[in-house]
């Protein structure tokens, strides 16, 4: 049996842009053009929104959750008549899933790369050579020093 967790939607309210989740009236306008819904039976932005609202979304934040199939195309954002922004709800769920250590490996390694190198791609010698050949200056990113205390939301 799925456990109903009335506190779940509160987690969402920590993510400002997903606040309007409660206005969903289940019209499915967000589903019609969703490319992920088209390809994955288990993926349905309307159901994701409603499950989140009802607090039965624990399965969505577990490892291998279907939420990672969202293409972030923002069609649902544009189509929803209630300003629910399903894609923002999904992003908020992803944040909660990441904080619980359940995000896909690629997401965690990218997160780490950004914080450690200020970049998602390490500047190799080969690329600097290619740049020089094109007459472009050498390129590097600045080092990031993100304060430890920041980014604590989502717990």
């Amino acid at each position, binding site marked *: 049996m799925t456990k109903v967790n009335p506190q779940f939607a509160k987690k969402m309210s920590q993510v400002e842009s997903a606040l309007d989740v409660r206005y969903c009236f289940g019209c499915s306008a967000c589903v019609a053009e969703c490319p992920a819904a088209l390809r994955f039976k288990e993926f349905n932005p309307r159901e994701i929104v409603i499950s989140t609202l009802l607090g039965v979304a624990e399965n969505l934040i577990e490892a291998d959750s279907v939420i990672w199939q969202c293409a*972030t195309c923002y*069609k649902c954002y544009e189509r929803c008549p209630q300003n629910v922004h399903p894609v923002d709800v999904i992003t*908020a769920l992803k944040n909660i899933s990441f904080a619980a250590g359940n995000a896909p490996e690629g997401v965690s390694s990218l997160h780490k790369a950004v914080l450690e190198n*200020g970049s998602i791609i390490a500047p*190799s010698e080969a*690329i600097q050579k*290619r740049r020089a050949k094109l007459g472009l200056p050498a390129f590097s990113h600045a080092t990031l020093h*993100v304060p430890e205390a920041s980014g604590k939301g989502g717990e």
Partner: protein
Amino acid sequence: MAEDAYLLFLGCMIPLRHPQIELAARKSMENLGVSLRESSEFTCCPEPWNMKASSLEKWLLIAARNLAVAEKEGSQLLTLCNGCFSTLTEASHLLAQNKGGIKEKVVKDLSSMGFSYSGKTSVHHVAQVLCGMEEKRVLASAKKELGGLKVALHHGCHLLRPSEILGFDDPFEPRLLEEFVRRLGAEPVAYRGYTDCCGRATLNRDASLEMAEQKLSAMEKEDADCVVVACPACFEQFDLGQVEISRRLGKNHQLPVIHICQLLALAQGEPPESLGLERHKIAIKPLLAKIGE
């Protein structure tokens, strides 16, 4: 001529993976008389799919730091990538909205990092700059007619949506880039699934490639000569993607893919061999032949 000077925000993918796009952007902007400045203080924008998915707070803080760098330089930002554009635009929107006092929190974190931000930075995608330019100025720089080259435009989701925040064009029936390529003498083709996603951010690679393949098929059905993108992620998804599509899905396409700045540089008469186009996985030759190169 303050409005014609920008601080170039390169992000990660263009300078470190597809520098030929950067080269075309620099040349084409110079040909238009747009001056670009640099800063060595930027980091990744940060990336709006996985970084945002992992921590909205850190995503916002790092974006704010980049906006603060631009503010310090007293300059407006120019991006060549939909990811950079959407991250930086959305971040400045969220800070301006300041829901729940989020701006104060970010400003406090920024100051501990040695930056300050008051909200003065404006963010521009190169497509916006080009589409907003006077026609005669564009034409004065374009020496070469593209001879009715049929281009399948792929704007990319994060140039169009969310439209209320990004404010580039209609999110489902865009018209501006179409008008711009027409000015260059190319013909934009309408195709099925015109504003659909390239699939880049979908985790399952087969599903992701299917999304790109569906668009490529639709473009080919309308006899497009090439795909024109505004983003390095879409570029990779369609260019390298065609190699993967053939391997994983067994469907073969050979549709050249170029960035809007590369199309412009070619129209401005930049010699193709000086643009590093040989690095594209799908040969550009058929496209060059169409425009008489």
